[in-house]
């Protein structure tokens, strides 16, 4: 009887180990999220510096599938001066009509990242970037850095302003045609 009991407890243990393994895989599909990512861009065309930052990027990604999203409120961009901010919102981005910009896509080489090992991993990202209500397919590269298991993502999008239906007489002159949008998210 005693041996039987030991056996059954051993079986329980085994089962627990087995299932905890399963739990791990379930847990393995982990969602990393932040609401305080940073996005900034520089669209300086001529003399006047036109650059802005937004520190409230909402981003999430899943480590198993590589699915990744970014969302940002247009009104949250801070410029050096408020007049620029007003023009950005009212004349260019039309933020009452299009309050958000977002990206939905995949880190295509997510399998190459070992989440249990710290280091910098180059990533490739593919998806749809929506700005000013216009969705465009885009690909880009970036870096995912793991420090004590916590990921930080750095990347950039190169966009042509006019492709997103943004118009205004200063585009191509005081405002650059090509703009680099940089992202920095600590999850």
């Amino acid at each position, binding site marked *: 009887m005693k041996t039987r009991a030991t056996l059954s407890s051993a079986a329980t243990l085994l089962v627990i180990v087995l299932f905890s393994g399963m739990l791990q895989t379930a*847990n393995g599909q982990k969602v990393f999220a932040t609401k305080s990512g940073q996005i900034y861009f520089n669209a300086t065309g001529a003399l*006047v510096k036109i650059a802005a930052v937004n520190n409230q990027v909402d981003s999430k990604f899943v480590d198993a599938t590589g699915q990744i999203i970014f969302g940002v409120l247009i009104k949250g961009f801070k410029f050096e001066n408020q007049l620029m901010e007003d023009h950005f919102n009212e004349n260019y981005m039309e933020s009452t009509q299009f309050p958000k910009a977002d990206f939905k896509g995949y880190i295509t080489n997510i399998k190459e990242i070992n989440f249990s090992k710290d280091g910098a991993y180059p990533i490739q990202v593919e998806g749809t970037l929506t700005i000013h209500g216009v969705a465009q397919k885009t690909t880009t590269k970036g870096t995912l850095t793991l420090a004590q298991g916590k990921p930080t993502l750095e990347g950039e999008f190169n966009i042509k302003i006019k492709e997103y239906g943004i118009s205004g007489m200063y585009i191509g002159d005081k405002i650059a045609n090509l703009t680099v949008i940089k992202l920095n998210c600590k999850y």
Partner: protein
Amino acid sequence: MFKLHTSLLSLCILGMQLNATAQTIDLFADSVSKPSNDIITSSFKTTRIVNGHSIENVGAGILDFKIMHRFGAINQGGYEFFGLDQATMRIGLDYGITKKLMIGIGRSTFQKQFDGFVKYKALSQQTGERNIPLSISYVGSAIYKSLKDATTTYQPYVSDKFSFAHQILFARKFNDQFSLQLTPTLLHYNIVENVSIPNDFYSLGIGFRQRISKRVNITTEYFYRIDKLAGYYDPLSVGVDIETGGHVFQLHVSNSTGMTERTFINETTGSWGKGDLRFGFNISRVFTLKKPKELKNLKF
């Protein structure tokens, strides 16, 4: 044994459930979230509608250099080149201490006045979590008339040359095209000409902005004087705001000459009925004195 089975079963179920939730993670599906709180901005294009204050403040750390210019009356005819030969102006500096608090000083050639004001935005129009239908600001101005009086029988004190204005601005931006503002005003004179004239004068201002294109807006401003100082008219100004990169130009026609609250609300000499109108313009140029802290440590 029964115990073991139960625990096994529950573990199984637990595992399955976890698996099930794990498989349904789809970020695209739940990524649509409404902006939590949306503070309405740009109700007006600049901090003045025409002469009077608008609900707008200059941003924190921003210096706004304002030149306001008023020509003579148009109905003086060709000899005075329809008023363009004469001009009075006010040079002013406005500064945003915080997002909600700004101060300003100015000097007018008209009656050699100095003026200073404080403007505080008490409530901001917003939608979302908090729904506030309108913005409310307070403006307090002090005006010092340094022009020497002709009379010599009475030696005025320095304090006699002061007058004050208290205004509460109620503004609502109805949509991107149209904003409306009501401005109840109390004007106080430290000294008036004789005992029959009160020291305090109430009036109600109304102003609006109508957008006609991305960079051009029509503005109108009117003050109804509840207490009237005899011999003067209610001020009515109609203008156009034109934006360029770092400037806002305001061109307008008005029956008032002065640019301080006392002179344009209470002491407007021109009458629209007689065509006693003046061209005028305001130019605003902003300088960033203090960068927003978010931008400080960034390399672009």
